[in-house]
């Protein structure tokens, strides 16, 4: 955990408290700062409870048997902490397995596509001067402003016309086609790769494709990692596109959403399904914290 503090603390602010000590303070001042510290930690603990409590009561519910759930209150811990029956029900009967498999396929193909399309576009926009470049940049910029969900009214007709309705291909092509933030991240990163590398390769007779493939793409690895993470989370969490374009098959969000019907009264199963969806996110967060913070900050400010 401690290593993850590094990226965001490029400018350590920790110098202030020791200095205060050096200066020395009156007892009154010390008392006031003491109560300020108490208030600070109290507010932090309250915030942590507000965040963690709704999730943990759901975990309790997911581990209870049906009669146990009916008889106990939300704060009563489950009798058997290893009762995973509801998880099995959710995973097998609730078709969450199908959802996970489909999501993984769409995720993998769209990510690979986004990376190639995005890095190639960024290479063209950063390393070439050509007519229409500003127009292309403007098109990408304006596109970020168009709210995605509502234009589905028209996009749907297009997907339908291509015969892609109710197929994973529809999702893949939409995920690849709407990623403008990835292109911006690639351009930003590419600006830090010295052009002299390109020039040296060109003198050695490399053509543009070789330069892209052999020099630029490998050097873009950190940016690619960032894009994989933020795009991966976005696809994993996407709800409306699979809901609209993949009605007959499960996707992680939609297979959970469908619990509302058949399991409407069985909260212990819904709770287990919800926890199942959150677990991969939680693991990814623990492992990739610093990348996630960096990536999301970069993506949002752009």
């Amino acid at each position, binding site marked *: *955990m401690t290593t993850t503090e590094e990226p965001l603390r490029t400018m350590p602010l920790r110098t202030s408290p020791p200095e205060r000590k050096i200066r020395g303070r009156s007892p009154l001042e010390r008392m006031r700062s003491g109560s300020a510290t108490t208030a600070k930690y109290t507010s932090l603990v309250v915030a942590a409870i507000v965040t963690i409590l709704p999730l943990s009561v759901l975990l309790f519910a997911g581990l209870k048997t049906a009669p146990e759930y009916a008889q106990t209150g939300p704060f009563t811990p489950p009798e058997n902490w290893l009762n995973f029956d509801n998880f099995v029900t959710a995973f097998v009967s609730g078709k969450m397995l199908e959802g996970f498999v489909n999501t993984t396929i769409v995720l993998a193909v769209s990510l690979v596509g986004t990376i190639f399309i995005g890095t*190639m576009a960024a290479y063209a926009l950063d390393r070439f001067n050509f007519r229409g470049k500003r127009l292309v940049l403007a098109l990408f910029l304006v*596109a970020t402003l168009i709210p995605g969900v*509502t234009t589905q009214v028209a996009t749907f007709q*297009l997907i339908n016309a291509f015969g892609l309705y109710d197929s994973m291909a529809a999702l893949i092509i939409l995920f690849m086609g709407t990623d403008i933030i990835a292109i911006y991240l690639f351009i930003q990163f590419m600006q830090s790769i010295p052009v002299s590398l390109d020039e040296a390769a060109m003198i050695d007779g490399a053509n543009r494709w070789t330069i892209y493939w052999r020099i630029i793409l490998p050097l873009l690895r950190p940016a690619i990692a960032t894009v994989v993470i933020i795009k991966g989370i976005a696809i994993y969490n996407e709800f409306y596109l699979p809901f609209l374009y993949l009605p007959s098959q499960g996707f992680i969000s939609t297979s959970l959403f469908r619990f509302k019907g058949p399991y409407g009264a069985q909260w212990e199963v819904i709770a287990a399904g919800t926890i199942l969806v959150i677990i991969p996110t939680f693991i990814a967060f623990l492992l990739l914290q610093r990348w996630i913070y960096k990536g999301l900050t970069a993506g949002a400010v752009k």
Partner: protein
Amino acid sequence: MAIATPGAAPADAPAALSAPMRGRRLRGISRGAGTRRGGSAGRSIMQHLTPWLFLAAAVGLLLLFTYWPAINLFYYSITDWDGIDQQKNLVGLENYLQVFTDPRIFSVFFVSLYYFAASFFQIAIALYFATILSFSTRFSSFFRGVLFFPYLINGVAVGFVFLYLFQPGGTLDTVLGWFGVTEPPQWLGNPDVVNWSLAATSVWRYTGMGFVLFLGAIQSIPHELYEAAEIDGANRWAQFWAIIFPGIRRVVGLTVILAIAGSLSVFEVPFVMTGGANGSSTFVINTLQTAFSYRQVGLASAMAVVLLIVVLVVTWIQRRVFPDEKVDLT
């Protein structure tokens, strides 16, 4: 799209000072000596074509899946199309008239106000925690992770977490019971309360993002400024208003604009939790229902166009109010 038009060559020539162009020239010198005239002309066309070859996939998808639907949206919005019929009858501005006069459609915009109000609360919380966590704090990375994590959770999962929390006799009612509240309202069943409940869910979900943005911005403020302020005897409150707030004004401005645009296009939380029942429907839910449940694609397109224009206007105002000024603290 004009690819390698004859005029492109002279227009390009003065721009040749940029580094890649220099590179291209070098190659011309080292290898071009023996080539025939025709060959070099062919290569010049290739040179103009190269960037477009790299761009083809991205621009193609952009035009096809972003701009083409957006243009079609305008076209559909002046027809009475139902989404299936071969024939689309032009009806002029009738759909727009309906959007603005039918109270069932337009009044839904007021639901956004709940989320808008909540987003100020959300920004205030995010700012508060970003500020206190930017000073040395025990377990700061734990608290940072806890505050941020909800933002990463799948929207449907968030919806279910709060459906469970808001159940009659559920977690929230139990907690309120400890404090002596015996008759809590129906959090999601009462039309007077439901939008506040949903907006609160939104706050829980999105606070983490603003928090991390603010934290990053605060930590990029040079720490000498705090030292100087300490020496001058400024307390934390004064430091916040004199150093931190001006330093992150741009990010806060950006977040406010995102909050406006976001509250106009709220969708997932109410759709998953109530499906728009009990007066919790939002403009986006209405638009999609009109298109896909009631099959009034023409009307739905007009609604989408109205939303699109509102969002573009809000963004344009943002660009005017917060031009890309670099924050200068010295």
